[in-house]
C-alpha cells in the first residue's frame, strides 16, 4: 500500500504501527523516557514535513527508523560529556512491581539491568544492529536497508555483538565468585 506522509489516514496508520518500535529503538539508545518521547515526536514530525510518498508501509518504516536512530545518536553524541551511557542505564529507575509474584520480578529486573549495561558497553556499530535485530522484528535485509549496510554486514555484526555480549556477561558472572 502506498503511503503519503501528509495524508491524515496514512499518517495515523504509520503512527499506530510504528510508535512502539520507534520508542523502543530510541529508548535503547538514550535510556531516558522523556528524551525518547521527544525524539519519537520529532521523527514523526519530520515524516510529515518531509511530505513524501513511500511505495509501501515497510519503506516508510525503514525511513522512520533511520531518522529516529540518527536523531537519538546525535542526541547521545551531543551530550556525551554529560554522562556515560552505562551510568545512565544504572541510574534508570527499576520498573514498579505490582505483581503478586513480586520476588521473581525483582530478580528479572536485576538480570535485565545487567544485560542492558552489557549492551550499553558495545561499540555503537554493533549496538544498533543487535538492538534492531532483537527488538524490531526486522530481518537482516530490512536492518541493512535501515542502516545503509549490506545484509552480510548485518550478519557479521549480529554475530560479533552476541559474542561480545557473551564475554561481557560471563565476565560479570565470574566477578561474583
Amino acid at each position, binding site marked *: *500500500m*502506498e503511503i503519503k506522509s*501528509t495524508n*491524515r489516514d496514512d*499518517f*495515523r496508520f504509520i*503512527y*499506530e504501527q510504528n*510508535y*512502539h518500535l520507534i*520508542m*523502543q529503538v530510541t*529508548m*535503547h539508545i538514550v535510556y531516558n*523516557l522523556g528524551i*525518547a*518521547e521527544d525524539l*519519537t*515526536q520529532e521523527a*514523526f*514530525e519530520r515524516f*510529515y514535513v518531509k*511530505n513524501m510518498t513511500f511505495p509501501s508501509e515497510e519503506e516508510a518504516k525503514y525511513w522512520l527508523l533511520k531518522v529516529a536512530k540518527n536523531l537519538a545518536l546525535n542526541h547521545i553524541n551531543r551530550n556525551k560529556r554529560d554522562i556515560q551511557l552505562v551510568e545512565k542505564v544504572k541510574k534508570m529507575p527499576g*520498573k514498579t512491581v505490582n505483581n503478586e509474584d513480586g520476588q521473581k520480578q525483582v530478580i*528479572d529486573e536485576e*538480570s*535485565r539491568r545487567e*544485560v*542492558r549495561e552489557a*549492551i550499553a558497553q558495545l561499540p555503537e556499530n554493533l549496538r544498533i544492529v*543487535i538492538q534492531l*535485530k*532483537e*527488538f524490531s522484528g526486522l*530481518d*537482516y535485509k530490512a536492518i541493512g536497508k535501515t542502516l545503509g549496510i549490506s545484509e552480510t554486514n548485518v*550478519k*557479521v555484526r*549480529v*554475530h560479533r555483538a*552476541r*559474542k561480545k*555480549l*557473551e564475554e561481557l*556477561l560471563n565476565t560479570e558472572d565470574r566477578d561474583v565468585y
Partner: protein
Amino acid sequence: MCIDSQMLSAYLDGELKEPYRTQVIEHLEHCAACRKHLDDIRALSNRVRNTAFTEEELGRKKDAMLEMLDKKYFQNNKISFFRRRFEMSLPQMVTAAAAVVVIFVCGFMFFGSNPAQTDDILPSFAVPADSQNVRLVSSKSGSLDDYTLEEILQYLDAKGYQVDISIKGLQPIETPAQTE
C-alpha cells in the same frame, strides 16, 4: 568439522540460506557440542529480548502525542485553496491516485500583452504545487498552506505576471485497490 558460531547465529535468526541451512540441521542432529552452542546463543538472544521495554512503559504519551500532531498538521483552521478545491469542487479527483495542480506564469511584462505569443517566445514554467514552489513564487518562507490562492494571485499580479491555473488529475497506469 563443527559449525562456526557466525553460521549458528544466522541459523538461529532464520537467515541461513540453502544449502547451508540443511547442512547445519543435519550436523546438529548428531553433534551435541553444536547443539549446546546453539542453545547458548539462543539463551543470550532471549536475555537481550527480555530487556525490551514493554508497550505499557513506552506508551504513556502515545495517544496524547498523536492528538497533538493531528491538531498541528491536520486540523488547520485556515483551509488552503488547494485542499478546499480538492475536497469540494473536484470530488472525482480526490479518488484519483494522484492529482497535480499546475500554475503557469508568463512574463508578459517584458514581451507585450499577447500570452500566446509570449508562450512562443518565453518558455512558461510549470510548477507542481507543493511547499517548495510557494517559496519560489512568493520568495517568502512558509508552506503553501500559509497563503490563499487570492494572495498568491495578488502577489503575482503586483509583479506583473499573467497567471493561468489549471488542475489535472493523473490516472496511474495501474490502479491498485485502495484499502480504506
